[in-house]
């Protein structure tokens, strides 16, 4: 059952009041996606959160958008949000400069359960901007690399230029014993990597299915196919987790927007154990 975000309590925040914070750095990941690094030094001990949680990011006078946190939970002095420029608020955010102030309230929602993965192999399957909410979990896993078996990161993007965190992906592969497999939907002559949907990558990794914990995040349709593929390969549903997305206004279960059947994604999600939502994923326009 849902519970109040302990991280939010630790930050001693009123859940409905936004807190002005300064933009310390802006990195453009691709034409439409950028990462804002926020200075959280105004919070005593930094801003505590768990991998997979999200914040409501506010632009003065414009509005709010729910954005997952993409930085390292062990470094609470700064906070990264990787944002796709698509709506009014995110387009306003895209126009911000270093030193500008935006508002933050959070963190909200459930997190990727890392404890269940101890001693097991981990398969992280992500698509598009879905890698962003998974990056904190990768940081956390690498902090205790020896506690886990294989760490496999499968990542699909639209084209080579659209891929997020390319340098880091390469670093994880070379330095941290992470099996990174990247694929794109459309390649060009300079791309030497895989081309095809994320699910096509599964044939290149031999999973010890019953000893694997899977974390999945990406467009809903991509998650559906990925879940089927994991199922086909025998990864237990109870060891598969996914992160859902819906329209959010309040982030605390009052506004009703993020309902996904019987659950509120802001309270019980965004991260769910697969059995909780498996039957809901097949319901169109739920």
């Amino acid at each position, binding site marked *: 059952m*849902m*519970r*109040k*975000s302990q991280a939010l309590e630790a930050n001693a925040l*009123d*859940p*409905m*009041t*936004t*807190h*002005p914070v*300064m933009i310390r750095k802006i990195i453009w990941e691709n034409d439409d996606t950028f990462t804002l690094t926020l200075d959280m030094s105004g919070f005593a001990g930094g801003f505590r959160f768990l991998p997979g949680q999200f914040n409501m990011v*506010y632009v*003065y*006078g*414009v*509005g*709010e958008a729910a954005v997952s946190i993409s930085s390292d939970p062990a470094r609470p002095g700064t906070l990264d949000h990787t944002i*796709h420029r*698509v*709506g009014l608020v*995110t387009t306003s955010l895209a126009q911000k400069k270093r*030193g*500008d*102030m935006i*508002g933050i309230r959070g963190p909200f929602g459930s997190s990727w359960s890392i404890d269940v993965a101890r001693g097991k192999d981990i398969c992280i399957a992500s698509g598009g901007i879905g890698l962003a909410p998974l990056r904190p979990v990768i940081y956390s896993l690498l902090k205790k690399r020896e506690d886990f078996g294989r760490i496999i990161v499968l990542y699909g993007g639209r084209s080579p230029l659209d891929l997020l965190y390319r340098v880091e992906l390469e670093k994880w592969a070379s330095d941290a014993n992470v099996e990174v497999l990247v694929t794109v939907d459309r390649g060009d002559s300079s791309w030497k990597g895989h081309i095809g949907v994320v699910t096509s990558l599964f044939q290149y990794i031999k999973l010890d299915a019953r000893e694997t914990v899977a974390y999945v995040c990406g*467009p809903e349709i991509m998650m559906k196919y990925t879940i089927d593929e994991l199922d086909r390969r025998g990864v237990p549903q109870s060891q598969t987790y996914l992160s859902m*997305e*819906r*329209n959010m*206004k*309040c982030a*605390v*279960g*009052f*506004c*009703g*927007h993020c*309902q996904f*059947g*019987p*659950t*509120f994604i802001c*309270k019980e999600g965004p991260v769910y154990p697969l059995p909780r939502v498996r039957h809901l994923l097949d*319901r*169109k*326009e*739920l």
Partner: protein
Amino acid sequence: MFIVELNDLQGLLTALQAGGFTVIGPTVKDGAITFDTLSSIEELPRGWSDVQEAGSYGIRHSEDDTLFSYNVGPHSWKKFLFPARLRLFSARKAGKAFEVDPVSPSAPPKYAFLGVRSCELAAIAIQDKIFMSGPYADKHYTALRKSACIIAVNCVHVGGTCFCASMGTGPRAKDGYDLVLTEIRTDDRHYFVAQMGSPLGKGLLQQVTHREADQKEREQVEKALKAAHDRMGRSLDTHNLPRLLEDNFESPRWEDVAKRCLSCANCTMVCPTCFCSTVEDVTDLSGEHAERWRRWDSCFTTDFTKVAGGNIRMSTRTRYRQWLTHKLCNWVEQFGTYGCVGCGRCITWCPVGIDITAEAAAIRETSMTTTNG
């Protein structure tokens, strides 16, 4: 049970006012029985009754001099506890930065709601669960709710669109009130039978002229409530209802109702349990001052489920399905109760007369046909 004579009822209002309460109750306005501030019981809709059917509402005056011989109107108490528009914070520019002033509910009005029906008590209890009993509490709702006094009135007349008996929420007020009144009008007498539900109610009653009810007067209340129960305008079969709706997610009936539904959101606005809201961020022309407002929203609006890359519920069919299945199926898992209290407002105020009880029955029927056929 205690007897308060009609002529002594004003004493209750006076006691409430003396206690610092703003008394809100039913009154005739704009051709409907609405809720407004009352200073005297003379403002109650004396002699008025209403006629409600699917898609129609009217009030009429008669020689009958009763104060509460009508049912729920277009307003519900949620407009006071969960205001349709509320400023959440204001902010002002300070150079490159901005400062935020949260709106704190420091001195909320102390409301006394007079004439709360049993279905509405149930609705308030439901909104209490939403806004006060989850991991987070809505501070605005909590402040208003905690200080509110509830004077309920038992329904001895039922309306054409009422089905509280089906939902187990009426017509008798069971709990959640400070004081409950039952209005009894016989040929020669006009009085109220009062029951206390809290120390506050007890204190109020002590300030009003009253006496212990006798056996006959007690029986009169039981008789009136029994009659109301039996005359209920509509009914809704709740047997296995969540499961039924779960199993009929792709019922053809959703398409049928979608052809009639205007997606106008009236049902959600008049519903005493609907709690969806959205926020609006605004600035003044100079940009020096910004505000954030919360306002009621509805799952029938087109952008309710808009996400980056699309919209989840794209048709009236799926929006109506969301609304009905939320009320009668998902709500049960979310809050341990139906989201419908059988007040009938959504039926009365639907411009095309869509009837939630008829839609649920139709789904039950088509489901049976499919299963058996």
